[in-house]
């Protein structure tokens, strides 16, 4: 039953991801992205990590894709009208080649080392403990990085200065 669910979720995710790439309308791509994140979240649930599943939906679907959709809608991107069959062909061929090379290189069929830690029952506590002891340094640096990113975005998107001797922005 778990394997069946795993296959179902995986196929759903892959189908949604192909929808992102193949659809001509950017808004449809964003919608397929949401669906693929739901599929991923389902895979996390199958593994027993409820925390990660919820965080995936909360952050990815709830914030990041909203940003994408905002940009797409505000830019009013036109539907890609040209029919570029050769690009699609190249895409499909390279994806197939990649897939088969993964099988040949036995990436997909290799036995994963079994020293995987059990998912603890109290994931919140474990994750927060790890985050504040072992991974404290990356955690703090990332928060600094996010702050500087806000500055960076401000630097490139600030409104143009009105050049009639007005107050400098």
């Amino acid at each position, binding site marked *: 039953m778990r394997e069946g669910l795993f296959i179902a979720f995986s196929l759903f995710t892959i189908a949604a991801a192909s929808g992102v790439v193949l659809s001509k309308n950017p808004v449809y791509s964003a919608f397929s992205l949401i669906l693929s994140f739901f599929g991923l979240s389902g895979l996390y649930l199958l593994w027993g990590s409820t925390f990660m599943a*919820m965080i995936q939906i*909360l952050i990815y679907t709830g914030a990041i894709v909203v940003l994408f959709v905002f940009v797409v809608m505000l830019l009013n991107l036109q539907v890609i009208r040209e029919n570029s069959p050769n690009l699609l062909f190249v895409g499909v061929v390279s994806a197939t080649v990649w897939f088969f090379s993964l099988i040949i290189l036995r990436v997909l069929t290799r036995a994963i080392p079994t020293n995987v830690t059990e998912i603890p029952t109290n994931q919140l506590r474990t994750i927060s403990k790890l985050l504040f002891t072992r991974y404290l340094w990356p955690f703090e640096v990332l928060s600094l990085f996010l702050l500087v990113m806000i500055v960076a975005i401000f630097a490139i998107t600030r409104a143009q200065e009105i050049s009639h001797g007005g107050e400098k922005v």
Partner: protein
Amino acid sequence: MEWTDLIVIAVKTAIIYLGMVQVVPIMLIVERRGAAFIQDRPGPNRVGPFGLFQPIADVIKMMMKEVISPRQVNKALYLLGPFLVLLPASLIVAALPFGDFFTLFDKSYMIQIANLDVGILYVLAIGSLGIYGILFGGWASNNKFSLIGAMRATSQIISYEIPLGLAACGAVLSYGSFSLREMVMAQEGTLLGALPHWGIFYQPLGFLLFFIAAFAETNRLPFDLPETEAELVAGFHTEYGPMDFGTFFMAEYMNMATMSALMVSIYFGGWHLPWISDATLLEGLGSRNLLALLQVLTVIVKISFFMLVFVWVRWTIPRFRFDQLMRLAWKNLIPLGLINLVITALIFYFKGAI
């Protein structure tokens, strides 16, 4: 999991969900009568005794009106819009606790569709999905007013999600758990002998933030700029027909109900009566199921109180302008939320969780 279990769970789910859906017709009449009462006029009183059958009339009107299908809309997303709005509103109901448990055929079942151990995280996650219906509906309408309304609604919702989440963080810190059921179970009995042991006394600032953010999340006045009648025609649901309008309406009321239920569960004791603990009630009533009924009634009364507060505020306070709204969220509520988090963390570091 025997098949009797499955049947009971299915029936329980249906009852809880459909019960929440009943909020919509009740609110249809309560809102209009409440508005009338505040505005010192009669309100709808034709359709039944005290106008109580007004919702039936409304629904019949919605179903019978001519559905205009605009030609220039993006068909797929246009049809998907209302569905996407209703879906999160319905899904949140799954995590809300309505009572402790009842016994049937010698087995006890929780009066809650799913006791998730990441309850409040689930609520926040699904709540953040509510944006997409508005966004896609507004964009697909191929109408500038709809798009502006949709953008405004979206930025409002994502801005106010943060104070909502911060208030929820404070609550999680105090109770030590994400699960809504455990939060309610921790609110039993009395605090210092005189007050009920409710979350609001532990997290007053958190409750204030949650309350304000709940208004913004559900697009209710004073935050209803996305659907102002005077400014944007009808906001993001301009191009929609009557039944779709009904769906958006339904989703808004269900969101209100779920927000109220959340406030009740986190801050107002959930299914507990104010000073009395469950044990004394059980002794008094004798039967587990009677106790369960009392608990459900308590929850319903509390949720109704909050719904009345929603209606009351709507017809009392003028609406915010968009930049005032944004400023409130980012410059006032988020710092308050962070301060709340720090104070809560300090207090509970020294005293331990509830």
